[in-house]
C-alpha cells in the first residue's frame, strides 16, 4: 500500500522533472517511439508477406504433389536447326506406373496436357492456355464452378467435344452472353461450352480480385485432345518454329493423408529418376514449400526484428545520453537530496523512474503508431499485413526494458556521487 503510493508519487515527480525540459524529453522519447513502432510495423509486414506466400502455396493444395514437364537445358543448346522436334517430359507410362504403384496412397492422379491452339468465337480470337485433363482436375486443385459443370468421366470415355472456360476467357469470348450452352472453336474443331470455372481467389490480393491471367484457361477432355491434336505441340517463336513432343505436361497427385505427402513425393522422385535420363521434369511439393516458406518467414522475422531492435537500441542510447547530461545538470539537486536524507536507492529509483517514464511513454505512443502503420500500408500500398497480438506486447515490454537498462548507469552515477562534492557543484 505504502509502496504503491510511493511509486505513484515517484512517477508523478519524474513526469514533473521531465516536463521542466519538454522539448528535450520529447526528442528523447522519439528514439524509443520509432523503435517500438518499427518493431510492430516490420513484424506486421513480414507476417503479412509470409501469410500471403503460404496462402499461395496452400492454393496449390497442401496434400498435392505436382509433377511437371520441363524442357531440359541440354536439348535447348543442341537445337541448331530452325525446326526440330524435341521430345521430353512426363509420359503416359509414368502416369500408369504411378497409378499402379501408389494408388493405395492416392485419391487421384490427374494428368494435364497443354495444347497450343487458338480459341475463337466468331470474330473474337484468344490464345488462352488450352488444357486437356480429366474430370478430377477440379477437385484436385480445389477450384469451383461458376456455372454449368466440369468435364465428366463420360466425356473422357466418349472423347466428347465439350469444354469448360475459365471466367476471364469466358468474359472475353462472350462479353454479352452466358457462354454455357454456346460453342467455341478450338483449332479447327467446335466444342460445346458446358461450364465456367470460378476465378481462383488468391490471398495475395487483399481486395479479393482474381489475378489476371489465372482464369485465362480452357479445359477439354484428355482423350479429345489426343484425338484431334496428337502429341505435337507447335509454338511459333519469332520466325522459327519450335516443335515439342510432350505426352503429359502435368500430373497432379492427390495424396490421401497429409503425413504421407513427403514419403510419396520421395518415392515418386525415385521412380521418375529411374525412367528419365535427363532432368525433364520437376516435382513440386507444396507442403515442402510451405515448410520452407515458414523457415524463410522465421529468418525474415529475425532480420526485421534485429533491424527494429537496433533502432530501439539507438533509442535507448539516446535516453542514456540525455539522462547522463541530466544527472550532471542536477548534481546539486542530488547533493541536496542526499544531505536531506535520501539514500542511494532513492536517488537510483528517482532517475530510473524518469528513464522508464521516458521509454514507456515513447513505447506507448510507439505501439499506437506501430498499429497504425500496417493499416496505412494495407490501405495505400495494398500489401497484406498481419499484426500478431504478441508483437505490440513484446515491443512495449522491450521499450520499458530499454528504459531500465539504459537508465541504470546514469542512476548509479547519480547515486554514488559524494554528497559534499555534489553540494559544492555550481
Amino acid at each position, binding site marked *: 500500500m505504502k509502496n504503491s503510493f510511493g511509486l505513484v508519487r515517484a512517477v508523478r*515527480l519524474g513526469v*514533473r*522533472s521531465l516536463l*521542466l525540459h519538454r522539448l528535450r524529453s520529447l526528442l528523447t522519447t522519439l528514439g524509443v517511439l520509432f523503435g517500438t513502432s518499427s518493431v510492430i510495423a516490420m513484424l506486421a509486414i513480414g507476417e503479412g508477406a509470409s501469410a500471403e506466400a503460404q496462402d499461395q502455396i496452400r492454393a496449390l493444395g497442401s496434400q498435392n504433389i505436382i509433377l511437371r514437364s520441363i524442357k531440359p537445358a541440354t536439348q535447348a543448346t543442341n537445337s541448331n536447326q530452325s525446326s526440330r522436334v524435341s521430345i521430353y517430359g512426363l509420359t503416359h507410362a509414368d502416369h500408369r506406373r504411378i497409378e499402379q504403384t501408389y494408388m493405395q496412397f492416392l485419391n487421384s492422379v490427374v494428368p494435364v496436357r497443354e495444347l497450343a491452339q487458338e480459341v475463337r468465337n466468331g470474330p473474337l480470337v484468344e490464345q488462352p492456355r488450352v488444357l486437356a485433363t480429366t474430370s478430377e482436375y477440379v477437385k484436385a486443385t480445389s477450384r469451383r464452378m461458376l456455372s454449368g459443370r466440369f468435364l465428366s468421366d463420360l466425356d473422357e470415355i466418349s472423347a466428347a467435344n465439350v469444354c469448360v472456360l475459365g471466367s476471364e476467357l469466358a468474359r472475353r469470348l462472350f462479353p454479352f452472353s452466358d457462354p454455357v450452352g454456346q460453342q467455341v472453336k478450338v483449332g479447327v474443331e467446335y466444342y460445346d461450352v458446358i461450364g465456367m470455372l470460378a476465378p481462383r481467389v488468391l490471398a495475395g490480393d487483399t481486395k479479393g480480385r482474381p489475378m489476371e491471367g489465372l482464369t485465362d484457361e480452357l479445359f477439354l477432355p484428355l482423350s479429345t485432345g489426343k484425338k484431334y491434336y496428337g502429341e505435337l505441340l507447335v509454338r511459333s517463336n519469332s520466325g522459327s518454329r519450335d516443335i515439342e513432343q510432350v505426352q503429359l505436361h502435368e500430373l497432379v497427385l492427390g495424396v490421401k493423408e497429409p503425413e504421407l505427402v513427403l514419403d510419396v513425393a520421395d518415392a515418386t522422385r525415385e521412380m521418375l529418376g529411374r525412367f528419365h535420363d535427363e532432368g525433364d521434369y520437376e516435382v513440386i511439393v507444396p507442403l515442402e514449400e510451405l515448410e520452407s516458406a515458414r523457415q524463410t518467414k522465421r529468418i525474415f522475422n529475425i532480420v526485421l526484428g534485429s533491424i527494429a531492435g537496433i533502432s530501439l537500441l539507438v533509442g535507448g542510447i539516446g535516453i542514456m545520453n540525455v539522462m547522463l547530461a541530466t544527472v550532471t545538470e542536477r548534481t*546539486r*539537486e542530488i*547533493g*541536496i*537530496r*542526499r*544531505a*536531506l*536524507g*535520501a*539514500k*542511494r*536507492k*532513492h536517488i537510483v529509483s528517482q532517475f530510473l523512474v524518469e528513464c522508464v517514464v521516458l521509454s514507456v511513454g515513447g513505447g506507448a505512443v510507439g505501439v499506437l503508431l506501430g498499429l497504425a502503420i500496417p493499416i496505412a500500408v494495407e490501405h495505400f500500398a495494398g500489401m497484406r499485413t498481419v499484426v500478431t497480438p504478441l508483437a505490440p506486447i513484446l515491443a512495449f515490454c522491450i521499450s520499458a526494458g530499454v528504459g531500465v537498462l539504459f537508465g541504470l548507469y546514469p542512476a548509479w552515477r547519480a547515486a554514488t556521487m559524494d*554528497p*559534499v562534492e555534489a*553540494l559544492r557543484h555550481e
Partner: protein
Amino acid sequence: METAEPALGPGAASNERPEAAPPAVTVQQGITGLPAGAPPASQIVASLDEVQKVYSTGAIDVTALESFSFDFAAGSYWSIMGSSGSGKSTLLNILGCIDRPTSGRYLVRGEDTAALDDDALSELRSRHLGFVFQSYNLIPQLDVIENILVPLLYQDDPPADGEERARMLAERVGLTGRTHHRPRELSGGQQQRVAIARALINNPALILADEATGNLDSTTALEILALFDELNAEGKTIVMVTHEKEVGERAHALLRLKDGRVESVE
C-alpha cells in the same frame, strides 16, 4: 580509540602527527552555548572526539581538522567562525553526517556514526538533522510545501501528518499564502524561510546553518537571524557557520577555528 576510516582508507591513519594536538576538550572552558541563565545541559546532542579529517588530493594530504574534540549540548546556539581553510566547512559536513572523519569518533545523540552504513547515516540525517544552506538549495521543480516535505520523503517510516506539519511550519516562518509557489517565484529571504521550514520538518536534534544569511541583504538577514533566535528560544540546538562578525555574535557562544583546530571559545 579505534574507529573506521571509511573515506580515505588505511593510509590516512598514518598521517597522524603525534607531536601536535594538545588535549582539545579543555578549550571548552565551561562555555556551553546555552542561553544565559539556562539550567545545565541535560544532553549532549553532538560529540566530536579526537576527530581528524585528511583530504588526499593527489600527492599532497591536506589536514582539514586536527584532533578535534568538542561537545554540543542540547539547546545550545553556537556560531563557528574562521578564515577560509580553517576547517569550518569540514566541521559542518562532519556534524551533518555528509562526510566522515578520517579518524576519531563522532556521536550524534550518543550514537557512534562510524558504526552506521550509508543507508543508516542517511536515515539519521533525515530524522535528526536539519540543514540551512547559503544558497537556499531548494528543489526547483517542487513547490513550497513539497520542498518542506523532502526530508520526510526519505524516512523509512514517515509520519502521517507530514503535510499538515509542513503547512504549519510554512505559516510559522511567515510564508502564509505562498505555499504553492515554486522557488523561482520567491525572493531570497522567502526561499531561505522555506529552507528553514524544511530544516524543521523532522523536528531535528541539531540544525546546521552554513552562511545562512550570506546571500541576503541586511534587513532580510536580520529577519532570518531573528527566526533563528526564536527557534533557539524554543529549545532547538543550532550550529551556524558564518564569516560575519555581527552574525556570529548573535549566537550564545562563538567558536573560532584556525588550521583545523579550535583557536578560541568566546
